[in-house]
């Protein structure tokens, strides 16, 4: 019973972090129709930058993530420019665009391996390693802090998208490009901004990732399944749906690794993904 309750709580904490990883993908894949399979690899790259800032300057991991986010925004804008010029404008995004992001993912991963090797990297901060005990449930702070930061970021992005003009324009670009153009907004610039925003979220998600556990260059591959499973299950681009899907996945994964062993955990996300695609591709909360 203790184990069960602990697994559920850990799953919820983890799920909120998964939402932070997936939110950028919910924007790019769900709203902009850009299948950025390199997304999780950007998260890992964010982790490495956080690790460097933390280990050589003693910067707090969360602060490091927030500082790096603007740089990632610029990187995202540049990548979208290339993507737009090479694929979207010529209508070749399906095959070549996918292969493009696959190549980007691969390059980031190999560069990380070449420069830093395949060793696991960790960050240090005062609160990592401490526990808060609530009754028989232990709450490790290395999960609680990411939970808080991830929830704050997800909420901020959600309110930004639903309340501001630019945010609504991002949602509109997916629904009706032409109408958006008639309202006096340039769809390409909107998409460019949105893509930058999505990559910026990976910097913060990355700083949380390296706080939760050690990071190595190929870790992104496991997160591809998680992130896509969450976005598809959440109904492609619906942010509340995505959050619920993320929490669900976090809890199921946590239960599976507590009761069946951690080596089965990676298969959960992909199993969920394959099952959703086969049975209900519009997700739990899809527009149909």
């Amino acid at each position, binding site marked *: 019973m203790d184990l069960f309750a602990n697994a559920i709580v850990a799953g919820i904490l983890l799920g909120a972090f998964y939402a932070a990883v997936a939110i950028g993908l919910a924007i790019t894949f769900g709203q902009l129709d850009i299948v950025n399979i390199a997304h999780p690899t950007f998260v890992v790259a964010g982790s490495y930058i956080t690790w460097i800032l933390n280990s050589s300057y003693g910067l707090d991991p969360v602060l490091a993530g927030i500082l790096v986010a603007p740089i990632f925004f610029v990187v995202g804008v540049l990548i979208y420019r290339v993507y737009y010029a090479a694929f979207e404008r010529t209508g070749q995004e399906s095959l070549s665009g996918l292969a493009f992001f696959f190549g980007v993912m691969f390059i980031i991963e190999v560069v990380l*391996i*070449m420069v830093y090797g395949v060793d696991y990297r960790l960050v240090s901060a005062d609160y990592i390693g401490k526990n808060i005990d609530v009754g028989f449930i232990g709450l490790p702070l290395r999960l609680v802090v990411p939970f808080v930061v991830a929830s704050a970021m997800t909420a901020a992005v959600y309110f930004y998208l639903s309340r501001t003009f630019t945010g609504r324009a991002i949602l509109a670009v997916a629904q009706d490009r032409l109408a958006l153009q008639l309202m006096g907004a340039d769809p390409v610039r909107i998409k460019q901004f949105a893509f930058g925003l999505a990559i910026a979220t990976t910097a913060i998600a990355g700083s949380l990732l390296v706080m939760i556990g050690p990071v190595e260059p190929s870790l992104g591959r496991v997160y591809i399944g998680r992130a896509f499973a969450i976005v598809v299950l959440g109904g492609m681009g619906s942010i509340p749906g995505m959050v619920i899907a993320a929490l669900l996945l976090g809890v199921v994964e946590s239960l599976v690794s507590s009761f069946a062993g951690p080596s089965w955990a990676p298969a959960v996300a*992909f199993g969920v*993904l394959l099952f959703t695609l086969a049975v209900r591709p519009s997700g739990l909360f899809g527009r149909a």
Partner: protein
Amino acid sequence: MFKTRADKIFWFTLAAVFLVGLGFTEVLANEYYYTAVYAILQATMMAVAWNILGGFTGYVNFGSAGFFAIGAYTAVALDKWLGLPLPLLIVGSAIICGLMGLGVGYLTLRLKGVYFAIATLALAIVLETLITNWDFVGAARGVYILTPEKVPFFDSYIQLLFVVMLALTLGSIAVSRQLNDSRIGRGLAAIRDDEVAAECAGVPTLRLKLISTTIMGAMMGVAGAPYPFFVTFVDPLSAFNLFVAVNAIAMPLIGGTAHWIGPVIGALLIGGAQEAITVTISSELNVLVVGIMLVLFITLAPQGIVGLVQKWMKRRRG
């Protein structure tokens, strides 16, 4: 088979390459060369297989490593369980991986192409988890394969595998060429260019897509089947190597996807360069070079080397 002059040249070249390969086993004893050429042949076969779906039809398969590894592990399991001879192991792998291709295709090809790509990626990881937890084939520890010390006709088992792989690769190229020129190939090209239009024109798109995923899967399984005997030790990490998947995508895209010769050119060029770089510089750099070349080619020359050559010939003529 020999209807046109091009046919004659093609089959003659194939036979000549095979005989030359066979001849080498008589004169060359240094095993390094066989290892290197085997790696190139394996990559060629994977590239040709990937192109049957990716190039002819336009659906991206990211899970090549999964098909390859299941081919390898099917051979391991059948060898341990029934002790079948190599040709039957290859057939077994072809059947299992062909069915796997059919299954994934059936589940996802009715949706948008993107879902197929993501599902193949997912499939590779699910399968890796299954194999990592399956004790019969060694689980995460990996498994050693015993190969016979004495083989008929050849000096060593490596040489035998080399000849088998050469025959399989040439066979896969022939299949790919036949498919490209056939009625099915024209249907696939129609799907690649405009699936809705093809469907409206009466092309049975789903059936054709399923045929090509099945052939692709079976071919990748065949490419993987001799691998355990070649390296004599397999573990999930080496069999499900991402590099296998990247090569399978990069080689056709760099060579040119629309024509059957594209992946062959890409595989020979990159595979050859890789062997040289791995030996002379470092294997990480080699991987990086492939990644960068892939990105450069798809952004700047989406038609690949074949496309560049065609453009150059057109300009020279007119």
